[in-house]
């Protein structure tokens, strides 16, 4: 069957992409339309002859932008082979050549010619002054680029790569191009910025002097002064990772190995960090432990101590981050602690080891990979965190906030921001690399195919008391902090007038009637709707990119798969502030001009959250036996059909999880967003930051509380939906990230 399919001489997919390329070249406006991607006003505003909206072909016909002309040839060339067989060598050669040449030319002209003519001096030297310029690419360029890309991948497939599977080759090509464009290109552009001197030239000295700045690496704190931000961040991350891992393990032990009754409640708490907007915890801590916080005042009234500002600085950030990230460590560790085979522990006990010995010499060592994993995750999260240091930092500067203030402050030093971002990236990538390298190699597998019906022993007594106490104290503390968040949203003016009121909710979310009908008069509605819209747009795209990548990683083998995997998971280790900085540096100028649009927000969310979709997909796909695809393929279906009809339906839980998770993460993101918001697209989190800066804690907390409840209901409805789409025996689709 498949052989016969290969011999066919009509290629519907090929014809589709050839025509798409023509449409992009002859019909759609080549350059970006200023009004916005989705506004169609250009149709009536002088198109197709007006220079702003003309398709490439019309521009050339009018003698403008002649450098677009060479693309015509690779767009037409594929017609020559359209009647040939796939196995014909000419077929693949023509497709590969036209795809590759067309794509390369498109990119080269985009980067070579910018808003002030030639972008590079050597081009001007070679061809003289251009006397013309071009703006960012638009629909036409986008479609033509896709067309070239898929001509290329079809050519490669026709040569027999991956069994000549067009869908798989195209998917790989597509993922590489978009990850390259939206992850590697901005990062590379940012690195270049670190070398730009004040006069505009490139200089390694500038980089060296900025990189080895005392403010980054200074060790003054050893002698009473201040340390550099890099050490501050590093030290903080180590502390937080240690604390979250310890607490995460504590909670995991309580849930799996104690007589504690309300285990479900502990599990429910794990959803909190996902749905909590950043810096809300910081605000709650200020209300509790600040100079005029409730606890501070009570303590000083009882013991007559002098209230201090101890919260601002390392202690405050550490407490806030530990509160925020302990549940993540718990999620990682619960799987590992449960995964330790009870039979091994029983074997140890049969050999007369007491409970403590068993725990210390058998259970704990088997949990090591989980502990390391949790530690590294905590490290990365703490390094990347932006909201808590912003609110609680005091004089303790960390990398993520320094990057922000290097860009937005009065000093405005993009080069310094780029250098700081590199340092931060270096730390997170090392942790990420260590996690994959070091943990990937050792085998700690204790779950085997064989039945293992044992029960985990309870913790030894000398462990159980401290563990239960710590868990109890920390659990209560977490509840108090979240209680404060809700309570704070009802207080009129914190510390001055503590009467309860709905006024903050009314200011933010009031709805009125006017002669035009419903009027969303509350000040928060604009950013709220924008946030929902952007998050809802990003979620399905994130899921699609993530799951396609997961499919390629679990189901296909191809050369360079490891690099491919590393590349796609990389954005997890790139802190949001780094993404934010690199995006404004990369996408503010042609060829890809996105700043100030909603698209840049959507794109940043897709690539920030894509690794989550990939992991969810991998987890769920590894549970589906490969024989399912094989039988589908044997019965004559191609891989696209198999993906659509066999794998996707079986992955509904993973899809839903990826959807909801990326939706929720997009709603709570701040670090990248704060660089990318614009007048039209203000997000909830950046609005809240604005309120905090304005001393309007009531409104900020009321808005954050509303977001928490909105997201809680989203997550709850996911639970409900997944509960109904259970497949077979699987009950858990995702236990970690």
């Amino acid at each position, binding site marked *: 069957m498949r052989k016969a399919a290969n011999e066919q001489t009509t290629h519907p997919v090929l014809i589709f992409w050839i025509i798409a390329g023509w449409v992009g070249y002859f019909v759609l406006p080549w350059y970006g339309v200023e009004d916005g991607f989705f506004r169609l006003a250009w149709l009536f505003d002088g198109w197709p002859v007006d220079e702003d909206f003309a398709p490439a072909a019309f521009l050339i016909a009018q003698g403008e932008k002649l450098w677009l002309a060479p693309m015509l040839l690779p767009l037409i060339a594929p017609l020559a082979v359209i009647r040939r067989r796939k196995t014909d060598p000419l077929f693949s050669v023509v497709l590969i050549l036209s795809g590759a040449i067309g794509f390369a030319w498109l990119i080269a002209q985009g980067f070579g010619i910018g808003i002030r003519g030639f972008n590079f001096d050597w081009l001007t030297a070679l061809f003289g002054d251009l006397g013309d310029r071009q703006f960012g690419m638009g629909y036409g360029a986008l479609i033509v680029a896709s067309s070239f890309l898929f001509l290329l991948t079809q050519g490669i497939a026709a040569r027999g790569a991956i069994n000549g599977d067009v869908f798989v080759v195209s998917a790989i090509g597509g993922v590489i191009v978009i990850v390259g464009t939206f992850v590697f290109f901005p990062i590379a552009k940012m690195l270049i910025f670190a070398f730009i001197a004040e006069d505009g030239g490139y200089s390694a000295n500038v980089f060296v002097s900025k990189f080895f700045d005392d403010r980054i690496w200074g060790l003054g704190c050893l002698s009473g002064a201040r340390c550099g931000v890099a050490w501050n961040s590093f030290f903080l991350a180590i502390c937080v990772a240690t604390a979250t891992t310890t607490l995460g393990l504590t909670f995991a032990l309580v849930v799996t190995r104690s007589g504690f009754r309300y285990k479900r409640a502990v599990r429910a708490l794990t959803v909190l960090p996902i749905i909590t907007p950043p810096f809300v915890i910081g605000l709650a801590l200020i209300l509790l432990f600040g*100079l*005029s916080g409730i606890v501070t005042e009570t303590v000083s009234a009882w013991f007559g101590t002098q209230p201090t500002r101890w919260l601002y600085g390392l202690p405050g950030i550490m407490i806030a981050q530990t509160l925020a990230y302990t549940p993540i460590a718990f999620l990682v560790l619960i799987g590992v602690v449960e995964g330790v085979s009870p039979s091994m522990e029983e074997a140890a006990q049969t050999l007369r080891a007491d409970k403590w010995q068993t725990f210390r010499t058998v259970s704990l060592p088997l949990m090591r990979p989980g502990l390391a994993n949790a530690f590294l995750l905590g490290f990365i999260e703490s390094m990347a965190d932006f909201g808590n240091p912003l609110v609680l930092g*005091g004089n303790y500067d960390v990398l993520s906030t320094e990057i922000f203030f290097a860009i*937005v402050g*009065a*000093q*405005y030093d993009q080069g310094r921001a780029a250098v700081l971002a590199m340092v931060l990236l270096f730390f997170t990538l090392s942790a990420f690399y260590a996690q994959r390298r070091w943990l990937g190699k050792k085998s700690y597998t204790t779950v085997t195919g064989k039945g293992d019906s044992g029960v985990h022993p309870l913790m030894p007594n000398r462990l159980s008391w401290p563990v239960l106490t710590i868990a109890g104290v920390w659990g209560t503390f977490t509840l108090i902090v979240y209680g404060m968040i809700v309570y704070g949203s009802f207080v009129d*003016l914190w510390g001055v007038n503590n009467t309860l009121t709905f006024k903050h909710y009314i200011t933010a979310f009031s709805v009125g009637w006017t002669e035009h009908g419903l009027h969303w008069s509350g000040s928060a509605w604009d950013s709220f709707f924008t946030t929902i819209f952007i998050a809802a747009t990003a979620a399905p795209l994130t899921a699609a990119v993530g799951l396609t990548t997961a499919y390629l990683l679990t189901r296909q083998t191809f050369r360079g798969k490891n690099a491919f995997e590393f590349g796609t998971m990389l954005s997890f280790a790139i802190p949001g502030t780094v993404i934010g900085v690199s995006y404004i540096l990369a996408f503010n100028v042609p060829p890809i*001009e996105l700043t100030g649009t909603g698209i840049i927000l959507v794109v940043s969310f897709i690539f920030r959250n894509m690794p989550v979709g990939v992991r969810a997909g991998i987890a769920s796909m590894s549970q589906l036996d490969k024989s399912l695809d094989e039988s589908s393929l044997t019965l004559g279906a191609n891989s696209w059909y198999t993906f659509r009809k066999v794998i996707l339906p079986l992955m509904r839980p993973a899809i839903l999880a990826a959807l909801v998770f990326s939706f929720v993460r997009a709603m709570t993101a701040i670090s990248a967003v704060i660089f990318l918001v614009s007048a039209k697209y203000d997000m909830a989190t950046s609005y809240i930051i604005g309120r905090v800066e304005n001393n309007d804690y009531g409104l900020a907390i009321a808005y954050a509380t509303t977001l928490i409840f909105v997201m809680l209901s989203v997550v709850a409805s996911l639970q409900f939906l997944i509960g109904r789409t259970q497949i077979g025996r699987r009950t858990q689709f995702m236990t970690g990230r």
Partner: protein
Amino acid sequence: MKSTHSIGAISVAATLLMAGAAQAEKLTLYCSAQEDWCQLMARSFEEATGIDVDMTRKSSGETFAQIRAEASNPKGDVWWGGTGDPHLQAAEEGLTAEYISPMRGELHPWAISQAESAGNRTIGIYSGALGYGYNTDLMAANDLPEPSCWKDLLDPIYKGHVQMANPNSSGTAYTTLATIVQLFGEDEGFDFMKGLHANINQYTKSGSAPIKAAARGENTIGIVFMHDAVKQAVAGFPIKVVAPCEGTGYEIGSMSIVEGARNMDEAKAFYDWALSAEAQALALEVDAFQVMSNMAAPSSDLAPDMSALTLIDYDFAKYGSSDERKRLLQKWDEEVSTLPQ
């Protein structure tokens, strides 16, 4: 049947799009004043002229950064509000456009001299004097005497009680630094900053954060613009505002049109409107207690009376220039911020 249907749908869609295309008048406003003031200005201008306003609020430093980043491809039209220095810097770098408004005759002389010092690329819209405010409850709780001069703040009893913003990240704090230098001379001024450093509990990133922290009871004394302190007092916080006895510097909140603005006519319309007495009267609705530049604009009783203050002759051209700014900030960084506290 089916085809007539779709033709109908297309023409409906077309009409809708045409309607969308017709109301093309719009303006992108970068606003560096407080959020509610920005909102009010944007909405009121829309009501007054029917021009759609897209407003982004960012601090003056951020906005300056953005305008510079977008220089080769400007996205904003008008930059309204925020301390004058970045406006002057933008003018110096040619990022903003020259414009002489017909409204000039109605303005205070300081607003016009601001414009003239920058080649008419910016203009004053409000002014506010520097000072400090303190939380009376915390002062009482800690048995601290009430300060009334700049030099009072150097007293070691205030150790850990004073907050100001970091001059590197805040225009307010840079104005403080420049004021002190002009008031006491450079050497004595830096000695003052060093002495102050010993009492500072935190250099905040944002200019008005110190007085906001003081209002919430998280800090005792905040060095800020007096109108910011007045605002916290009016909001009900126990804040007392001090005009330092030695005299003080001031800022001129400014407005500029972005060079190469995409909507130049609308930008000029906004510029003229924003200088009118009725537009400037809006400040009172949002508790902005600055002195407005239009002589006919009403002022609040609560606002600090500029004529009663001892104001220094602030040299905006010198201290607003990039070079002097860089030099002072570097000196502060090296000589003051590195000292142990």
